[in-house]
């Protein structure tokens, strides 16, 4: 699931920047093709998500969604800068997920309006491109932070093996996601 998002995001960002920055537009020039890549990638991404939901591990997805949705007192303390035990996802990751999902919806809505507005003047609004642009700026900033934490920052980059291979170092998990480890131990001891 995550890698579908990652791949689609980079293609959409790349093609989007070619459409947006004059230096790149001049270099690549084939606006019709780049536009097609941009739109087709967005559609393919939506289709891929649907596919995963339909044929994937829906219980696993549902559990993940629940974990991302729920904020407890520890999460709130963590967000305010304090140290507090975290579950499988720390509060920052939960917030990132909520924002990313919201942005994806907004990109899709504004993207659709940009495309449709070309064909039906009643739906061509000046604000649409401003919102689409604004989303892009904020997303790039969020992406920079995301990549820093995932690849560079010592306390968090261990998570990369989790999202890539499905498992993380146990000691690191105990330190940074203690409540998750406790839950696992509780489950396995009760079985």
């Amino acid at each position, binding site marked *: 699931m995550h890698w579908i998002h990652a791949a689609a995001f980079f293609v959409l960002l790349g093609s989007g920047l070619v459409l947006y920055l004059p230096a790149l*537009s001049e270099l690549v020039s084939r606006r019709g093709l780049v536009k097609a890549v941009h739109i087709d990638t967005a559609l393919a991404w939506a289709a891929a998500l649907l596919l995963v939901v339909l044929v994937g591990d829906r219980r696993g997805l549902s559990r993940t969604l629940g974990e991302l949705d*729920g904020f407890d007192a520890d999460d709130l303390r963590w967000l305010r800068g304090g140290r507090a035990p975290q579950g499988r996802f720390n509060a920052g990751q939960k917030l990132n997920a909520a924002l990313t999902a919201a942005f994806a919806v907004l990109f899709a809505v504004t993207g659709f309006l940009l495309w449709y*507005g070309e064909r039906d003047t009643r739906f061509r609004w000046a*604000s649409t*491109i401003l919102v689409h642009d604004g989303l892009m700026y904020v997303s790039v900033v969020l992406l920079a932070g995301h990549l820093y934490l995932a690849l560079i920052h010592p306390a968090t980059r261990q998570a990369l093996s989790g999202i890539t291979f499905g498992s993380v170092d146990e000691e690191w998990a105990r330190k940074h996601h203690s409540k998750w480890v406790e839950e696992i131990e509780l489950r396995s001891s009760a079985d």
Partner: protein
Amino acid sequence: MNRAEVQDRPDVRRYGRRAFLGVVVAGVSALAWADRLSRHVGGGLAQLEALVPSSGWRIYTIGDSMPEFDRTTWRLRVDGLVERPLELSYDDLLALPRAKQTSDFHCVTGWSVRDVRWEGVRFRDLLAAARPRREAHALRFVSAEHPYDDTLSLEQAYLADAMLAHRMDGRPLTQAHGAPVRVVVPEMYGYKNVKWVERIELLPKAVDGYWEQRGYDRDAWVGRSNGFG
């Protein structure tokens, strides 16, 4: 074994979905106010834009590559309903009376660039030697980027701030902006401002150009056409 799911615990608040919905609603609502806000915050936004390598311009094309400009072989044809059809070289063009102006550029898709400095020829001066016939009431601008074209009525072409520009922001027009000449008519949306003009045809009346054939308005007044205003 009954495993308590995370979200069933009583102290857990579903902030995740609230954050998600809140942002989506805020974003959708922005479709109603983003434009107005950007006009008020204009100055600040322009400074922000300066941080990004975009200069505010977006380069739109309809083909796979932009027309090349060869200074020695390029000619601007002026024909149609004229007494004397012309073929102007680039030097001929530069020798014509020059006009300068600073104006804004508005694209129908919603972005604008303010205070663009243009230098070029007013259409009256350009057409003087060709002597448009009495039946001529419109100009058709044919771009080297085929099949792009568009038309203006003579009255529209003779607006005080309309011109055939060959310099932008102190330099000769660059390839991306339509070198060597482009139409500049600030009171209308960008698509009327034809780039890479290679021919001007005098017609009895205005006809639909490239974008009009795709549903856009012929009289593309900024703020008063294409569904705006």
